[in-house]
């Protein structure tokens, strides 16, 4: 089946003429039709557009002029990205009926690389959440155990790759929203350095933290996806004008002689024993491959979560102010006056988690509280950044668990604070703007995936990919597939 294949395997078939992009697109669309009612990864499937683009790719392969490794490859994108002419909901009711007249830069780059986009993937509303239970539409299931969450907020993107409903997908990571669902769903998830990938057309949650990245079936695929989307974009002033290396070319360099930092603060009480065992075993594997490990300290880790839950809501309260019922999306009729229209529309259009964060953020930015909350959180952010800077003076890469536990049951975490704790190991990386990657590192006895997090220096995604690839090559975790039946 073509849907089993990675991007690079699929591309090889296309080039050899053993398969065509249209065949791949048809197989994926058929599998989505059969399995997605169970997994519920897709919010919107764009079958006709996908087949049309696949036919164009067919022609390119036939003429011997394919555009590159992504040409003709069926992919999915999180519904946080604007797609021209295709409804974009961001998992929210407030964007109901919104059809952007523009493509996000990353979407444009994927299309420019010849990719076939199958549709838009489910997510927590405005990317706020760790389980995809906050989607205004439905909850996506974890393909490894349908009673469990796929993680979030990019749960649809992670589940789609795990269930072979797309060859690879794009998600976003503000506090762990790529790495945590990748760990829960057993695939490779990469959050690049802040500024590495354009945010233009990405519906903003917290502008200073959001970053776009891929979910993939293996590390090489993640490298190919990053290659396609990375690089400066004149439409995003925060995107960096730093050259993008050839990630695939550096993948095979191995970890011989690399210094790998193990942060003491990431092996704490509350860390699931099976997760800890798997991560420790992974560290041994890396040592066996020639890496040197070193204990390091990131002393401000414990304050990261608190700082994040002030900064992210503050920015979200500002970014979400534009959803007011005036120009697009939902407007609740029957209002008495303007303020009533705003209140009713936002009251109905936003879910509980979004409202909670908007209120938190509004409070944190309000006159008289700014210094105590937002200002203080920014200072903590600087301390967290310095922790990493210091650590990276001694080590090349840091490894740690991606999440404290494996995928939990749908409805299990009703208390928002216990939900927030899920991101405790991923959030500091966002605060520092660094790249982070989650690679499968084993399974619990119950058969749930465990993720190993690799953290690198700014703009050194190549180091993460190379470390993860060495580990992946030495293990067999990625051979296991969830059992799914229509």
């Amino acid at each position: 089946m073509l849907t089993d294949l990675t991007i690079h395997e699929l591309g090889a078939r296309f080039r050899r003429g053993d398969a065509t992009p249209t065949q791949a697109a048809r197989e994926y669309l058929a599998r989505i039709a059969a399995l997605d009612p169970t997994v519920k990864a897709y919010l919107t499937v764009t079958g006709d557009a996908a087949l049309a683009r696949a036919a164009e790719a067919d022609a390119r392969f036939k003429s011997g002029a394919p555009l590159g490794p992504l040409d003709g490859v069926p992919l999915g994108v999180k519904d946080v990205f604007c797609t021209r002419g295709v409804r974009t909901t961001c998992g929210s009711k407030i964007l109901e009926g919104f059809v952007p007249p523009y493509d996000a830069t990353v979407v444009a780059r994927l299309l420019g690389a010849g990719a076939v986009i199958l549709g838009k993937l489910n997510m927590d509303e405005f990317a706020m959440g760790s389980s995809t239970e906050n989607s205004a539409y439905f909850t996506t299931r974890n393909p490894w155990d349908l009673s469990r969450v796929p993680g979030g907020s990019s749960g649809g993107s992670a589940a789609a790759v795990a269930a072979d409903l797309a060859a690879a997908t794009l998600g976003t990571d503000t506090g762990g929203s790529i790495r945590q669902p990748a760990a829960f769903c057993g695939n490779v998830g990469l959050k690049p350095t802040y500024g590495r990938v354009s945010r233009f057309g990405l519906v903003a949650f917290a502008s200073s933290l959001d970053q776009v990245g891929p979910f993939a079936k293996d590390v090489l695929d993640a490298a190919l996806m990053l290659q396609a989307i990375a690089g400066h974009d004149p439409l995003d002033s925060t995107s960096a004008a730093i050259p993008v290396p050839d990630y695939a070319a550096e993948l095979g360099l191995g970890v011989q002689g690399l210094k790998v930092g193990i942060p003491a603060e990431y092996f704490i009480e509350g860390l699931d024993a099976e997760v800890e065992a798997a991560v420790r075993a992974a560290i041994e594997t890396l040592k066996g491959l020639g890496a040197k490990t070193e204990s390091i300290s990131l002393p401000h880790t414990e304050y990261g979560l608190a700082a994040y839950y002030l900064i992210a809501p503050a920015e979200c309260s500002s970014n979400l102010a534009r959803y007011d019922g005036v120009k697009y999306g939902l407007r609740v009729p029957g209002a008495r006056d303007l303020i009533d229209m705003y209140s009713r529309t936002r009251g109905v259009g936003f879910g509980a988690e979004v409202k909670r964060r908007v209120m938190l953020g509004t409070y944190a930015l309000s006159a008289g509280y700014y210094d105590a909350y937002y200002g203080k959180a920014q200072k903590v952010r600087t301390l967290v950044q310095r922790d990493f800077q210091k650590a990276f003076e001694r080590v090349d890469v840091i490894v740690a668990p991606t999440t404290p536990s494996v995928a939990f049951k749908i409805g299990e975490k009703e208390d928002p604070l216990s939900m927030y704790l899920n991101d405790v190991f991923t959030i500091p990386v966002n605060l520092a703007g660094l790249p982070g990657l989650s690679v499968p590192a084993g399974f619990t006895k119950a058969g749930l995936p465990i993720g190993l997090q690799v953290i690198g220096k700014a703009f050194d995604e190549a180091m993460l990919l190379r470390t993860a690839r060495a580990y992946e090559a030495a293990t067999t975790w990625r051979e296991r597939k969830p059992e799914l039946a229509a």
Partner: protein
Amino acid sequence: MSGAYDVVIGLEVHAQLLTRSKMFCGCSTVFGAPPNTQTCPVCQGMPGTLPVINRRAVEFGIKTSLAIDCIVNADNRFARKHYYYPDMPKNYQITQYEEPLAEHGHLDIEVDGAARRIGIERLHLEEDVGKLIHEGSLETAQSSRVDFNRAGVPLMEIVSKPDIRTSEEAGAYLRRLRAIVVYLGVCDGNMEEGSMRCDANISLKRAGATPLGTKVEVKNMNSFRNVQHALEYEIKRQGRALDAGERIVPETRLWDPDKGQTVSMRSKEFAHDYRFFPEPDLPPLNVEARWIEAVRATLPELPAARRVRFMRAHALTAYDADLLTGSRALADYFEAAVAQCGKPKAVANWILNELLRELPGDDERAVAACAISPGNLAGLITLIEDGTISGKIAKDVFEKMYRSGEDARTIVSREGLTQVADAGALGAVVDGVLAEHAKVALDYKAGKKAALGFLVGQVMKATAGKASPGVVNSLLAEKLSKL
């Protein structure tokens, strides 16, 4: 209340920058286009869109900062200012808050010959908002539409220190500032179209007292005259209130030019919480010294310097030089005319006494659109200087030039307005007048010298004003002495 209070005024001036594109996107800024034809996803604040700073707008801001002696901050950044209103696409405005483009400048003004220096607190950049169009009046409108053409247009806000003491000083400050931005070519200075907008903060305190009085903000003044009248009104209103022992309420008031008074708009005691925070979509803007120097090199001669040069090079009075340099177009017009006829004093007089009376306004466009070109004015002056026409005829010719756009020589020759200086031809006319007014001539001989003026007038009348007054005078003197 006279003299009992010190008046403290600070002005906030918004100037629309003459960039071709908006502050954070590539949309056009041309005025008057059909609603929402000059918008894109970025200036409409659509989901996922991001701002990109207009380099030219920053350059214009630097240019102005240098002209008003501000210190340009090497590190400055944008912030978000939040409030809900349907004309604001993102429900926050991108502006500069704690780290503005420039600070600590000043502007020198002169009122009744006395020089004053007004401090400039800061100059910062921001984006404009859109415009609401109500179907009918605001109160009864069944629906309202939003035009986002103006949303995202670059604005520069210049905040004065509370150094202004009178409405005249406020007017002088505004005129000087307007002249500067127009000279720099960064703003067209058109207050009626809203390219320049002014808000005033005004408070009164007991003369000599240190604590400042309660501040009232006055908005909605769209001409220099409005600003002066509104401030005069407020000075009187607050003075009377204080005299009566009333408390001044901190509030925002609007100037109603029809009623000639300010009216309360909203109380400042429920001031909005704008929740400013640094704009995370824009990295800090680093203005390197090299950039500042490059902009400095492009500064034109500014009004103050030009004024001094006009006085020195053209021997103009301070008053004339001030008026002429108040507008770049007017000063350019003056220099162009002088270059052609070499008579600065005459050119200044014709511009200040005749041309300004005819022009629909003294703004740049009125001067630019004027039918009399500087060359044509110079031509008119040359005809007077060489005695071809009289000063009186010249005024009629000027009128005709203004209506038709023709040059003076064409009008003079077509209508036969050339001055008659021929003693032979004029002698006959003089003889006729003397014969007709023999009694007046005798009065003159008897010592009534004023009678001469009457006789000159009669000759002029008979020649339809074309007679050369010098020749008429000498002919009359000669013939009267022979009587």
